[in-house]
């Protein structure tokens, strides 16, 4: 990157499709004006012209270069406005930023992935990447929890994944309806179901802070070492460059040193679950 490149200027991207994933979550398919590459787990800053900018980890495959999909939960001012967008809107993207999932550390392992709610978004990107590299992994056990059946996102993708060799899927909801035939309870209950050889395993966790906290506690209890657990941290990443300070977590700039951290790197920081 040249010294005179202006890093604050977003690349234009056209919104080509909006997919309703749940009553509160939508996916936005963007076509960047030029090829845009990222590593799975890295995040981008998405600009809604004149309104604001917010960090999101793409939910699409890093192997696809001409489209990028961002899955967004309606949670605040900017995300609410984004939810109102129609295809044709021109948006801005900056990035990619930070350190993504450590694929090299996952290869050769039994990968246990624990996701909750909209935390499935970055994990889907990882799952796509792992599917493409199936030869290099032992197996993937994906545990996913959401509030209720309506809030379970990526339903068609889940069905495909269930048919994919080396991939297992477990799902739970906090509150079930009559049609729900899978588990009921918080996401961590799924960890009692799974069969993994912990010595050969690595765990990846992404979800709401409270789920991540109890998820990590449970994994440690199961016998995972702190160095076998990876977390995607969600903080208020704003500049993406380790400058603005909004995402500091102890000495770390989450936007630059993360957003994916190995648990032992951050466990002593105050307030990581907030």
């Amino acid at each position: 990157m040249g010294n005179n490149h202006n890093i604050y200027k977003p690349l234009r991207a056209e919104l080509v499709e909006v997919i309703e994933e749940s009553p509160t979550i939508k996916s936005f398919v963007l076509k960047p004006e030029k090829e845009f590459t990222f590593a799975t787990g890295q995040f981008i800053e998405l600009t809604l012209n004149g309104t604001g900018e917010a960090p999101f980890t793409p939910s699409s495959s890093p192997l696809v270069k001409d489209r990028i999909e961002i899955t967004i939960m309606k949670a605040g001012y900017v995300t609410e406005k984004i939810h109102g967008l129609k295809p044709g809107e021109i948006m801005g993207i900056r990035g990619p930023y930070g350190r993504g999932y450590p694929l090299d550390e996952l290869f050769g392992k039994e990968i246990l992935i624990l996701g909750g709610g909209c935390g499935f978004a970055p994990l889907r990107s990882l799952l796509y990447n792992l599917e493409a590299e199936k030869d290099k992994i032992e197996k993937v056990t994906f545990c996913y929890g959401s509030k209720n059946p309506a809030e379970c996102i990526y339903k068609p993708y889940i069905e495909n994944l269930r048919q994919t060799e080396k991939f297992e899927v477990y799902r739970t909801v906090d509150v079930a309806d009559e049609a729900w035939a899978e588990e009921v309870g918080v996401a961590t209950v799924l960890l009692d179901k799974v069969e993994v050889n912990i010595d050969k395993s690595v765990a990846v966790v992404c979800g709401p802070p409270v789920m991540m906290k109890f998820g990590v506690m449970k994994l440690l209890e199961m016998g995972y070492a702190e160095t076998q657990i990876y977390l995607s941290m969600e903080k208020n990443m704003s500049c993406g460059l380790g400058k603005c300070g909004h995402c500091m977590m102890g000495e770390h700039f989450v936007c630059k040193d993360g957003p994916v951290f190995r648990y032992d790197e951050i466990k002593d920081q105050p307030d990581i679950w907030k």
Partner: protein
Amino acid sequence: MERMSAVSVTDWQVALLQLAKSFSFYAPVSFNGSMDYDLIDDENAGSIIYNHPKPSTPLKTFFLPVRENVTSEAERKKQTVVMGAPACDLAALDMLDEMYLGRDFTDIYYKARRENSFIIGYECNSMAENCHCTSCGINPFPEKHSDLSLVKIDGRVFLDAVTQKGKDLLKFIGEHAVIEQANETEAKRIQEKRETLKEELGRANNRLPGYEESGKLLEKTNGAIWEKYSEKCVSCGACATICPTCTCFLLIDRPGFEKIRQMDACQYPGFERVAAGEDPLGELPVRFRNRYYCKYVWRPMKFKSIACTGCGRCIDTCIGKISKNELLEELYANKK
């Protein structure tokens, strides 16, 4: 040390007016009992204050304006001369340069301003309330980032050109003033003043732990001390705004995909709040503690530069009259 150049006060006044004509020339003048930088012209050139610490505004404001459009072209304006930066503010440029010029990318706006400016650093002839540069390992005279260093003693102005920019500036001054060399007595006098002030600063802060020691002490703190000292904090953010090394900012979006960078402070509520409502710094004592940890514990882990240069402005400016030094002194005393 190479002998300093010397100019008579009468000649200096002539050169000064020429500097003010040719550059955007800023120097400290008095404002209602305090002192701050002002744009110098024929009117106020006579009321410039010399070698007295410390301008109310830190030097950083010349390079990091409060608000700036960071998507427009970096403007090339008239060259700026900032005269009167004390050693604490000069040393703070280490952190600013590391942040905005070093590491992963170069901030073109900061870079343009740095390149477009000449800095005339001041030796401090006295200390002001809450000055504690020496506790941070900084001497009260320019040792870095000053192009030309200046001290005015007994009717003569002494100048030391440190950089090429400083030499250019001295050459410009030489076109309007007779430049001599400081004699041995004068050089000795300057040296003695430095030593005397260093001793005075050391005495005034003899209960204050050094920079590194402060970090070690802070790491061992519990909630009680933060509850106690944050009691009078109103989250106004003045401490960060006035700090020569605080660099945090906010990006504001404007139509046309424009972005405005506005200086920000971790002491403002909601600084780290995310969309879903989680807020790591939501509680006042935690937010208050953040600034101390950032300065003394966390920045040293990631940066080569120090994040407190002992200017004491955060204490000068606090409307709750909270003293950072009092807190550090309390930790230090309890350790012993």
